[in-house]
């Protein structure tokens, strides 16, 4: 049972995690489709290997940021074809991370403009 934690406990998110969660924002996906979506989101730079993908997914499920849907095939979670869905906590974590990045970006941009002469 994932413990209820506040979004701040999860950030800063590892870039790979951010991409994974973001890929699921528009709806549940499974295995191969998820890999394709992450690749697209990262501008073609990141194609996850199978072990990396599932290890991360496993972890995210345990931390409560994702949920597994039961596969249509035989109702057991974790089987090939099981789609993953982002949870409320996951969405909140993405939002928190986005806010952090935004604040960071603004701080760096203003330092850049001040420093340039």
């Amino acid at each position, binding site marked *: 049972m994932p413990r209820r934690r506040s979004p701040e406990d999860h950030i800063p998110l590892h870039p790979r995690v951010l991409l994974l969660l973001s890929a699921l924002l528009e709806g549940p996906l499974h*295995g191969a489709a998820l890999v394709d979506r992450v690749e697209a989101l990262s501008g073609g730079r990141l194609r996850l*290997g199978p072990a990396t993908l599932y290890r991360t997914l496993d972890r995210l499920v345990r931390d409560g940021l994702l949920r597994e849907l039961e596969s249509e095939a035989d109702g057991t979670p974790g089987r090939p*074809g099981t789609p993953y869905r982002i949870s409320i906590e996951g969405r909140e974590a993405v939002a928190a991370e986005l806010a952090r990045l935004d604040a960071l970006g603004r701080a760096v941009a203003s330092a850049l403009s001040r420093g340039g002469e």
Partner: protein
Amino acid sequence: MQDLVVHRALLRLYPRSFRERRGGAVLELARAEAHRARGAGGVAASLVARTRSALDLLVNLPLAWRDAAGEHTHLRNVPMNDRTLEALALDTRLALRRLLRAPGFTAAAVLTLGIALGAATAVFGLVDQVMLRPLPYPHADRLVALWESEDGRDISVSWPNFEDWTARLNSFDQLAAYSRTTLTLTGAGDAARLRGLGVTANLLGTVGLEPHVGRWFGPAADRADGPAEVVLTHALWTERFGGDRAVLGRSLMLDGEPYQIVGVAPPGFRFPDGIVLISSDFFVPLGPLLGDERTDRNSHPGLYGLGRLRLETDLDMARAELDALSSALEAEHPDVNTGYRIRSEGALDVVVGDTGSTLLLVTIAVGLVLLVAAANVSGLFLARGWAREADTGVQLALGAGRTRLARQVIIESLLVGLGAAVAGVGTSWFALYAAAPILEGLPRAPAPHLDLRIAGFALVGALTVGVLVGVLPALRTPRGHALGVGDRSVASGRREGRLRDLLVAAEVALAVVLVVGATLLTRSLRAVEGLDAGIRTSDVLTFNVGLPEVPYDEPELAISFFGRLTAEMSSLPGVRAVGGVSVLPLSGSGSQSGIAPIGGGPDAGIPTDVAVVLPGYFEAMEIELMRGRLFDDNDRAGAGPVAVVDERLARTFFGDDDPVGQSVQGWGFDAIEIVGVVRHVKHYGVLQTSREQLYVPHAQRPFRRMHLVARTDSDPLGLVPATRERLSGLDPNVPLSSPSTMDERVARTLRGPRTAAILGSTMAALGALLSLVGVHALVAYAVSRRTREIGLRMALGASGGSVRSSMLLRTLRPALAGVAAGLAAAAVASRGLQAWIHGVSALDPASFLVAGGGLVVVILVAGAIPASRITRVDPVQALRSD
């Protein structure tokens, strides 16, 4: 290749919880990725994709375990794995470039490892072909050879016993029997003595093969009135009959009788490949061949059993049943079966025989050679690491992680390993090719060839050795920046020196063990070659002659034929004595019968090697007459049966009394009078046990198949053409078979010790050579590193000579220590060699002295060469060097 076999294997290393939850999904995705890549870029791309996902599995393994342990893997802090893969690729490219830029080092490392790896691969190929490869029959692992033993000595089966086995054993779903037979083929090309097997109808079915053409025998084959049919082996069919299917149904004249050809065996089927030590040309039904042996439980006419275990049993369970049956048969027929047990062995083990232990020895030796090579190359890497300490210091100062640097060393050593794998495969093929004459005597005739298993072994071996070689240098990667302090620091100098010394000492010690072992094996071989078998084997020609039943059905015809033959041969120039015997010594087989003194009780009979001899046999073989006389013309058919016995039988039955004039019984004779006593002959080989011996003149028991022996002045085989001529002058349908010399036969029995000695010596030479290269490199390196010190000492007035000798001694100390350690290790290890050496003690001081002393001398010489360069060092130059 089985689908994703590597991935499955890697997955098995993952924590079970992860494997159960996600394993299927991981494999499915890997498969999908490979499929996708194939669509985009073909097979190559699919292979790349497979490799990437496999590496991905490898890299995630430790992380998965950390997750499973419950620690918080900070997903924020873990470096991105895909970047790690890129870094790995970059490091590999860099390592390759570095290696190519130092061709001397790389060549030395690759060659050293490559030669050792080649030897190891060749040995593996050998072991694989002889011992690991299953016999080429379906269900070969369930085939079991069966025979009997009498008071511990192996003999063949008697037919009534075999019938009891068939009726009462449950462990086998098929039980068959076979026996060797030779028949003379006439009327189809040159007359020839063919070797074949008499078989029960179910033998070929037991082995599980279908006839290539035609059929096997029907059940009538086991009856005494069985059909005169023959099945040809594929080899005979193609050689003699051109592979023509029309031969089916035709008749062959074997021993003057027509046999109908009913089938041809599948190709490559030369049963029993090694169980009986000859190849066979044909198969005939066993039933008609058994005469009196069919009902005589005491007669063991060279019959052997072959069974196929039931699926649910194994050999151990079957053996329990065999023991029980042995005891039952002993109790039921105490007069003939007492002391008889049923023996069994897996078919493959029987074929491999003693060679297994020789191969084990060679495998251990080659393992030692590989260790020497690994120590050598590891030392090379260490030296290179130290030489590049300045470089490394810079890298460290610039922020390179120590792990990364250490990883680079391992990558380099792995690349060297790969290069060595390629060199090794080539070397192994060449080695097997060159060693072919030594190897052809081994069972299953290994031939040099490359297959995936051998190449796979070379690769795996190379990578393993590569990692091993790199471990030590990688661990020695310096921690901090060594800029400024550099390699002149005393502390690091001492460390590097000690490690290097240890490696060299280890190498030399291993080499010493190898050389001691080889010396022991060689001395043992010499000792065995010198053992006396009781006969003089030099310059003796041997060959077989078998008279067909038709027209030689009357005993007088056989007697007169062989009488004329020996007379003809005696008249040939260069022939000093001619004789004949029914069973040749040192041929691996003998014929036994129970012989007892007259009036002795039922237990007084002992199994005795019996033989029929043509007059002149004892002279030709120079078997010494010790008492009484040999056979003469008066000992013929109709006269009282006479025998010549050996000194063992005389002693066993009569003690110190004179046996001449006494009588014994057995072998179908009610009473035979002993007329002479001869020296005992080691019939089965100088190292094997032998039995009491009894000889009977041919005139009184006229066998139709005899081995002729002739002592000649010089080259025995040179007489063969003339002999053949005389023989065909007597009867053109009787061929001269298997011409050979006694020396050749002796050599065949010594094949095992000879192979062990030769291969062992080769390994020892290899190991010694490799370790010497290591010693040489050590001294050269030490000299080059200490140039400054040498210059200093010489500038301060020391003579070149004294500097040289002190330097030599100091650097050679570890090598000499290695010799001492090696001798001690060899003393312990040689106890394990006891099974292979005879006539020489395992702690034979001469061997140890020669081995140790020889290596010390060579070490000194190897070290002296670079040391001699010291005197040429210009002190001024040396002091300036940096």
